[in-house]
């Protein structure tokens, strides 16, 4: 493992896969996601599909919260807007999944920007409250049957067989859904990794760290905050539309404040502001939830009600040990191994 900086060009230093060990690990890991549906059972594939959907949503949250520092408590609402709008495009117009995802993402981005407008004057908890209002407005809106002419109905089924565009390239089985959602996730992970190493993410992080000095350095703070809302909102909206395809129906109960908090836990646990942190956080929380539930079920059928307690303790322990999340802890281990057997 290299213990110094050996890059001979700036291009090399900016690369996503920079070391030989990383290249080998990447090549070895590459086939795994493609083999999983043929090796593991349906339960594992379903859980992975859920992880992929939430990775996109939490990466969107990471852009708004982790990069730009805006506390947005409307994750559930954003996903609901993406889910309901794409369901109308898919089920009623028959336009297909890709147009549905794009419309869902764009509409969510627009709503996110509108609810980001108060950031012109306020920040921190005030923004949190304004977006929390969106969460409750959205739930009221989607539960209101009199507004079905807009959202298409409070509870709707998503067709099991849907083409990517119109009737072209139909997706129907769980395995096909898995590969579709895997592909979309890879696209968003790459896009976010790319974003994180450009000036756009640096400017977002600058605003997050210190908006006063950002303005002195020539950053239009308000405009860049809105850009973060738009990018993050788009991603969360697309995740919402994929989530509706994954669970096969849309229902306001799937997009409550609990979903928002769950995504916050995922991001905080994995490591806020880091793409790999978000991915690790989503995977860790989803797997831990599943394992804790299975463990509790072995003792008593109603013991699963204790799941939040176990889960809460786990989060407190992790954050007490490493507040910057699992990714920071892994970074420390990597640093230790890099320098070993020396201390520095």
């Amino acid at each position, binding site marked *: 493992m290299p213990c110094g900086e050996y890059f001979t*060009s*700036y*291009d090399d*230093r*900016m690369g996503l896969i920079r070391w030989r060990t990383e290249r080998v690990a990447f090549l070895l890991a590459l086939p795994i996601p493609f083999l999983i549906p043929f090796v593991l059972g349906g339960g594992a594939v379903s859980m992975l599909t859920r992880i992929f959907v939430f990775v996109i949503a939490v990466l969107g949250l990471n852009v708004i919260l982790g990069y730009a520092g805006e506390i947005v408590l409307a994750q559930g609402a954003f996903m609901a807007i993406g889910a309901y709008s794409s369901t109308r495009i898919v089920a009623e117009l028959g336009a297909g999944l890709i147009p549905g995802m794009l419309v869902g993402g764009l509409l969510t981005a627009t709503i996110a920007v509108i609810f980001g407008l108060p950031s012109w004057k306020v920040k921190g908890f005030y923004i949190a409250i304004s977006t929390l209002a969106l969460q409750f407005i959205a739930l009221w809106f989607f539960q209101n049957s009199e507004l079905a002419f807009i959202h298409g109905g409070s509870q709707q089924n998503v067709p099991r067989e849907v083409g990517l565009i119109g009737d072209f390239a139909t997706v129907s089985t769980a395995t096909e859904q898995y590969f579709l959602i895997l592909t979309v996730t890879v696209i968003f992970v790459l*896009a976010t990794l*790319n*974003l994180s*190493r*450009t*000036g*756009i*993410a*640096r*400017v977002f*992080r*600058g605003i997050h*760290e*210190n908006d*006063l*000095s*950002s*303005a*002195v*350095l*020539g*950053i*239009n*703070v308000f405009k860049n905050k809105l*850009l973060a809302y738009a*990018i993050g909102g788009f991603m969360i909206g697309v995740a919402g539309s994929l989530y509706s395809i994954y669970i096969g129906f849309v229902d306001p109960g799937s997009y409550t404040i609990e979903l928002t908090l769950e995504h916050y836990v995922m991001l905080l646990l994995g490591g806020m502001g880091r793409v790999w942190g978000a991915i690790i956080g989503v995977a860790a929380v989803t797997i831990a939830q599943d394992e804790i539930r299975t463990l509790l079920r072995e003792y008593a059928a109603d013991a699963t009600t204790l799941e939040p307690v176990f889960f809460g303790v786990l989060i407190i322990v992790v954050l007490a040990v490493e507040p910057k999340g699992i990714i920071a802890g892994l970074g420390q281990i990597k640093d230790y191994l890099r320098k070993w057997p020396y201390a520095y």
Partner: protein
Amino acid sequence: MSTQDTPTRRADLRSGPHVPPERAALGCRDVTKTFGAVTACDDVSIGIDDGEWVSIVGPNGAGKTTLLNVLNGFYDPDTGGRIFLDGEDVTADRAYKRARKGLGRTFQGLELFDDEDVLENVMTTQAVRERPNLLSALLFYRGGRRLEAENMRRVEEIIDYLELWEYRHDTVASLPLGIQRRVDLARTLALDPDVLLLDEAMSGLTFDEKYDMVRFLADLNENEGLTLVMIEHDLEVVTDVSERMVVLNQGGVVARGNPEDVTNDPEVRNIYTGVD
């Protein structure tokens, strides 16, 4: 009475701006700034010529930082006050617009991005000057990649110039104050400013650190033609480096001119020592 204290010389010290603010590299005309009943700046007019090194001094509460905040756009002057940058009236421009027009600023309280390393701090400012469009950033292909490489090359030049290379990957919060002040300067230089406002850049520094800071600033002023406006309490540094001084007291200008004349002015002495 010494020859320096003749009525004529004293009149010069209280006369108007050395350069008309409307034609100065940085100037302000009739700037008053009040906060409720407190007048922090009282009818201040200053003109700073291109390539000059000017120091603004005064006791605590004289209105120096308020004036700096008005100049860089944090505060709007009260009605009638005007701010000029390179001959252009920028009174209506907000801070970020003035920064993009070439007005850099450092902070007494060091408003750095504490959790980022030195390289990222400077790269952030560079990103303001040259940044890819969204599609190019998301794809990180050709144009976007080339731009980021070019930005990194330029930032490394600034880091080398300010002798910060050994701290490049250190988190800013972990660095000593002297190095943090240098990072603040590096970050502002990445903006490629024409005029640099320094808010007590020597505050808290050791003798060696002050020497280094002055060395960098003198080089920037003499060889790069950077106009420097410095708020400073250390009169020894001020008189050594400044071409002109402006003395503020209770919000108003009480003296201006070359350091020798200003420091010998009885009113200035009285402000600093309480003795005529």
